[in-house]
């Protein structure tokens, strides 16, 4: 294969940067641009087209896998486009730039009594990223994904078109761009409907369950009476105890329940403490976790946590701030670094009610048997939505954080192929913001060929020169994958 003749004018070497995924399991070089104006994005499209480069879009870089990497190409980081364009505290409608983060969002609206109806597990992502991934929270079965609260967005397509989309206008683009992982266009402004709340606190209830079956049953039966449910699953014990864990439900307070809502809605009441027990600075905690991040250490840690949940923390009801409950992942800063130099992958699969228990049980046991148990498992309840590249089902999701190390990589690779098979056979789905394992064939299996074809047709329409690309896109939608 000869590849000359299309010699390009070099991009400035100054732009070369090392970019990483959130899991620290992948890194690569890219020519990094951080535009502040839409005109600069248009200009970059033109430069990339002329030089034969592809462009990957990036927000806060919080995807676990390769969604915000475009190795060897141009990466457009939109974090500097972070103005709040309009806020109406009467209606709860906010219009923002794509680089505005979840943190900026709640900091801006909370004191007026508004909260985003859908919040991911961390406040670091940009809203452009949230929209591109169509994130969900611990209330997905009830509230749906983030995209359902978008009243309108404007986007720049690589074909040069500026479009405005809403659930009733340009609907194909609306349901296509949301959840498309930044492959069809760049969001240039986003208008969201926030949710009215009457306190900065949630009414939280915590209890422990002895195995996976009980956890799933509890998550399912709790969905009628609660606003949020989430289950922590311990994937390290042997035998029937596998999948034991703790559940948290949470509910918004009704008007009048909070005697001083203005106090609890203030950001001062929400901001997470920077020490644990008032003593240990949180910023260093991951360094102490790191030596314990092995099968033995995590088993011991999880067992201790479970026993505490089972005894002193069992059936506890308490008030917790919205921020502390929703952004659990921000509680220990840089926790992902505790996984060591190989980083981690998150393996999140979505399974229908009927097949979930058997499949998850088999998956947990298989990983345990292979000596590759997940160090953190999280169960949530979901419902389907109408977006083109949807990950949701009427059922459960189980997110498994798995450590990657050089030594165990071949075994992990084999395990993941088997897990994917189990999920696909059980009629399950996957989530691009988390994924780093799927092949194009597996993607077309769970999305269905028709959906993939529709997506490709939309791609050809929005981006005839195939300018927008990421490593994830190439892996999941073209055949350039070594895992065939």
């Amino acid at each position: 294969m000869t590849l000359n003749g299309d010699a390009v004018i070099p991009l400035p070497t100054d732009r070369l940067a090392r970019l990483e995924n959130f899991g620290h399991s992948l890194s690569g070089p890219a020519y990094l641009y951080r535009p502040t104006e839409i005109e600069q994005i248009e200009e970059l499209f033109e430069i990339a087209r002329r030089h034969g480069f592809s462009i990957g879009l990036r927000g806060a870089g919080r995807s676990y896998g390769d969604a915000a990497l475009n190795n060897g190409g141009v990466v457009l980081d939109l974090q500097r486009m972070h103005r709040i364009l309009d806020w109406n505290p009467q209606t709860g409608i906010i219009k923002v730039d794509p680089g505005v983060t979840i943190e900026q969002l709640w900091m801006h609206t909370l004191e007026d009594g508004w909260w985003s109806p859908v919040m991911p597990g961390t406040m670091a992502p940009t809203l452009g990223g949230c929209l591109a991934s169509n994130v969900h929270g611990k209330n997905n079965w009830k509230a749906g994904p983030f995209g359902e609260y978008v009243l309108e967005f404007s986007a720049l397509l690589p074909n040069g078109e500026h479009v405005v989309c809403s659930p009733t206008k340009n609907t194909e683009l609306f349901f296509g761009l949301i959840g498309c992982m930044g492959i069809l266009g760049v969001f240039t402004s986003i208008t969201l409907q926030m949710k009215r709340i009457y306190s900065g606190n949630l009414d939280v209830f915590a209890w422990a369950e002895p195995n996976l079956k009980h956890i799933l049953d509890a998550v399912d039966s709790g969905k009628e009476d609660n606003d949020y449910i989430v289950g922590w699953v311990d994937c390290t014990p042997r035998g029937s105890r596998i999948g034991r864990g703790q559940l948290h439900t949470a509910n918004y307070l009704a008007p009048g329940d909070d005697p001083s809502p203005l106090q609890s809605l203030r950001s001062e009441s929400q901001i997470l403490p920077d020490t644990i027990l008032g003593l240990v600075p949180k910023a260093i905690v991951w360094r102490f976790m790191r030596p314990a991040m092995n099968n033995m250490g995590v088993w011991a840690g999880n067992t201790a946590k479970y026993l505490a949940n089972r005894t002193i923390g069992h059936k506890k009801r308490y008030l917790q701030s919205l921020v502390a409950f929703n952004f659990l992942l921000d509680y220990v800063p840089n926790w992902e670094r505790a996984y060591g130099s190989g980083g981690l992958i998150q393996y999140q699969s979505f399974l229908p009610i009927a097949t979930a228990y058997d499949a998850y049980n088999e998956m947990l046991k298989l990983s345990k048997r292979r000596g590759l148990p997940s160090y953190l498992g999280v169960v949530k309840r979901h419902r389907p939505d109408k977006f083109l590249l949807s990950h949701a089902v009427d059922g459960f999701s189980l997110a498994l954080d798995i450590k990657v190390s050089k030594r165990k990589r071949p075994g992990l690779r084999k395990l993941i192929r088997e897990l994917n098979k189990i999920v696909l056979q059980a009629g399950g789905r996957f989530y691009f913001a988390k994924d780093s394992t799927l092949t194009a064939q597996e993607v077309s299996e769970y999305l269905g060929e028709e959906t993939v074809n529709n997506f490709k047709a939309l791609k050809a329409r929005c981006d005839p020169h195939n300018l927008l690309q990421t490593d994830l896109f190439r892996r999941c939608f073209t055949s350039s994958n070594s895992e065939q």
Partner: protein
Amino acid sequence: MSATPSVPVDTPLLTRPRAVIVGASSGIGAALAHKLAQEGYLVALLARNQDNLESIAQQINHTAGETQAFVYPHDVTDYDLIPSLFQTILRDLKKIDALVYVSGAQFPVGISEFEFEKDRNMLEVNLLGAVAWLGQAAVLFERMGVGQIVGISSVAADRGRVGNPAYNSSKAGLSTYLEALRNRLTRHGVNVLTVKPGFVDTKLFRENAKASFGVISPEKAANAIWRAMRKRKQQIYTPGWWRWMMLVIRHVPSIIFRRLSF
């Protein structure tokens, strides 16, 4: 996008190293291309002779049963094209883990011959081309905080001899350049390896050979280079005994050395 070859995407579970070999159409470069490909590397092969490159790439891809080698015809003295070609390779391969500079020119010169054209060509190919290519790799690897630079120097770098002053100085210059790169880049996590082959049975050697003892095959040299790359060594002689030989030769005092005619 132009016709980008389908280079497999790295995942956390399967990453493949990539190497660029400048001067891959014959000799040590070709042997190293085969060796690195065999070790799982995707290789970008550069040289002037496109036909030779194509046939090497074909052999590699045929053996591997997949596209593992990519061909970029290039003359290292086209300095102005190097930045954009480097970028094209980076674009195609998605990342680069090692750059090996093998290109070398050596012309037989008479003991009292001073022909600037020959001398200049040797300096250009052996030294200036290397500076141009390794500089590109140095920037990338420094930013990435990882990578490996390999330069094929020569035992001829260790002493200026009567035989071929320009060749000696081109290789001495390359060795010093590599040393300086090493001092710059080690602190950024980049390994720089200087390879000093003795007599290796290549076209270059056959055209120039006067002595012929201890000649090794290019494959043997390539194996030694790969071992050194894997161990992240700083400098090797190949075959290894040249290290002792050169230790002696380096210490021959000038008063004797200038009377010798080897």
